[in-house]
């Protein structure tokens, strides 16, 4: 899993019906110290995350194992809102 920050939202009216009702967010992967990296990912939100929060993003087919994502065509899902990151 990677740590990412939420940059924005995506609105899509015409989409696979299994994606109906799912919130799509744009996230940017960040380093453990909180600094930004490059690039972005569109991820489905499963936890109710909000703008600028640090979140956990699971990628690949494992994203479908999140609760509520069964048989949904996604390869990136937000599965947690991060409280703290402690690197010793």
């Amino acid at each position: 899993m990677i740590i990412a920050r939420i940059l924005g939202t995506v609105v899509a009216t015409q989409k696979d019906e299994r994606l109906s009702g799912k919130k799509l967010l744009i996230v940017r992967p960040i380093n453990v110290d909180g600094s930004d990296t490059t690039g972005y990912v569109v991820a489905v939100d499963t936890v109710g995350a909000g703008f600028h929060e640090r979140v956990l993003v699971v990628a690949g087919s494992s994203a479908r194992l999140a609760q509520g994502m069964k048989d949904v065509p996604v390869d990136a899902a937000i599965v947690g809102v991060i409280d703290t990151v402690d690197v010793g």
Partner: protein
Amino acid sequence: MQLARVVGTVVSTVKNESLHGRKLLIVQTVDKDLQPSGKPMVAVDAVGAGVGELVFWCRGKEASFPFKREDTPTDCTIVGIIDSEQHVTR
């Protein structure tokens, strides 16, 4: 599977229900000389690893297999603890 060093922990209160009760650790992948290589990842712990330990982790869908009975959304899982650095022969 990759060798890695556990370098930290992540706390998340609001998370997908299928991750409840799972321990999240930050792993830094290491090369054959046990030097850091690449970016740290957040891993789910399946074996009871702790900070500072040398472990190996599994990527992809197979990462959810240790928790087979309940589907767990993870693409990076710690699946073994290496006994000591001397046990990595090269």
